[in-house]
């Protein structure tokens, strides 16, 4: 299997607190990797470090054989590494369609002068992007609400829209940051189905969440993170039976039902 992403010894400290302390793992093409851990384990910080939102103080990130440590998010997206955000992930005042159009920037943008003068290149890219957007609206089940304001959608659909926006950037590896936080069981299933469809379309997925049941039912492999470090890794049923994992969760206030 192709190794898409290689994170090696990555770490950052915030004022004395080691938020992420030397984490190393790989993501293989075609898999769905889950990163779980209790709240405050450093999962989101880990995603921020990989996606360039924060510059790591140590360690490297190699994506498709290119060292991309600390690169700005837009440059990573250009290379096919795209992430979603847990909060404020959509343009609330704009329509759902406009949201995805904005995500489709890389397909759509023909260059400053081209778009200024609406050249044939600009028109071609616009048509390509429009087709892509229509396709995404359909595949993600958002056609019915395409003209509604994104902020007026139920929260579950907003999360799905967030994924659609990320997909518009044509990712090779998609990192989803807490995609089901705050969702009902039904909405969680909707998102889970959407993620499975994403993998079917050929995108490798890395899911970060603290909801054990959700992750266990979705991912091929799990990486457990606690207190900024790797706790263990392996197949879901192995990991969830691991006593240390159970303790890590019970040690925090956040215990989700259905452990092991």
């Amino acid at each position: 299997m192709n190794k898409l992403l290689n994170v090696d010894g990555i770490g950052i400290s915030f004022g004395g607190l080691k938020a992420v302390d030397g984490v190393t793992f790989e993501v293989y093409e075609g898999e769905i990797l889950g990163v779980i851990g209790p709240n405050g384990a450093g999962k989101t910080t880990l995603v921020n470090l990989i996606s360039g939102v924060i510059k790591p103080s140590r360690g490297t990130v190699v994506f498709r054989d290119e060292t991309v440590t600390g690169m700005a998010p837009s440059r990573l997206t250009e290379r096919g590494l795209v992430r979603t955000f847990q909060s404020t992930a959509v343009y609330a005042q704009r329509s759902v369609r406009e949201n995805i159009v904005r995500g489709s920037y890389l397909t759509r943008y023909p260059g400053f002068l081209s778009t200024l003068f609406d050249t044939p290149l600009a028109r071609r890219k616009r048509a390509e992007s429009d087709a892509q957007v229509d396709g995404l609206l359909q595949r993600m089940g958002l056609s019915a609400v395409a003209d509604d304001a994104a902020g007026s959608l139920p929260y579950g659909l907003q999360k799905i829209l967030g994924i659609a926006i990320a997909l518009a950037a044509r990712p090779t590896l998609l990192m989803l940051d807490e995609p089901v936080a705050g969702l009902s069981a039904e909405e969680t299933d909707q998102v889970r189905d959407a993620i499975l469809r994403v993998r079917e379309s050929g995108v490798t997925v890395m899911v970060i969440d603290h909801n054990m049941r959700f992750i266990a039912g979705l991912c091929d492999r799990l990486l457990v993170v606690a207190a900024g470090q790797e706790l263990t890794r392996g197949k879901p049923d192995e990991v969830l039976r691991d006593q240390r994992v159970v303790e890590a969760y019970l040690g925090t206030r956040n215990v989700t039902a259905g452990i092991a």
Partner: protein
Amino acid sequence: MSNTSLNPPVARQTAAAPRGMKVLAIGVLVTVILAVLPHVADNAFILAIGALILLNMIGALSLHLIIRTGHISFSHAGFMGVGAYACALSVLKLGVSPFVGLAIGAAASGLLALVVGPIVLRLTGKYFVLVTFLLGEIIRLVLVEWESVTGGSNGLSSIPDLHAGWNSPLAQYYIALVAAVLVAALCIRLLMSETGRAMDAVREAQRVTECAGVPVIRLKVGIFVLGCALVGLQGGLLAFFMHYIDPTTFGMTDSLNLVVMNVLGGMYNVVGPIVGAVFLVALPELLRGYVEIQRILFGVALIVVMASFSSGLVGLATMLRRKVHQ
């Protein structure tokens, strides 16, 4: 920053043909009307006000571009000053032709923006406001203190016309009209293009936009440089019109005026600065003689507008239009 309701969604100006045609038609119509105006109202006073409004529209529109990326610059008149002085100095001391001087003025402002931009544009909202506030003051102080070059408080005089013989109110009106129309066309077209879409996206949700592949800093700096270069152009034109410039024209009050033109008219709609420029320049000229009362009313108007309609006059018009349609 604004709290508009969620339904219906704000319409995004696409580059779709019918909308573009409509805008073009309106633009041509307005330009023709303004071009014909001097024959209808052949009054030096009106032509002078007209020229002043048109020039200020350049400043207001160029600032508008920067505001659309989410940065309110309080140093815009400072950059106007840089353009004015660079233009005037190149003509007076280096002997270049006035048109080249204009280009040099715009380039000088743009260059300063290029140097300063990458540093200050990383700052968020209120800190950017504060830095540009101080930056504007620094520029003014440099203009005042660097006497050997800028002439200090006495400024620069005996600045020639843009072209020999073009010194009548009529000529100045047409120069201003051509410049303003070109700048407006550029700004409107830019905002309607995909670059404009990216600018709005950066302002509304920067992180999401950056992860969609938009090079945020590069875009913000590019627009900042363009906006400052355009206002530098206004500075140069001002120098040729008034034949004299000094630091007082480019101070805090003038930067604030340009911001107010945008806020009063409507910060996130291109019609806003156009309307704002007309209001802010025309009203004082028409109410001459009662300067104090007029300024007091202006101050009160600002309070009322900011307290009630944060989306400016354009927002008010949109709201009224919606009410009428119901």
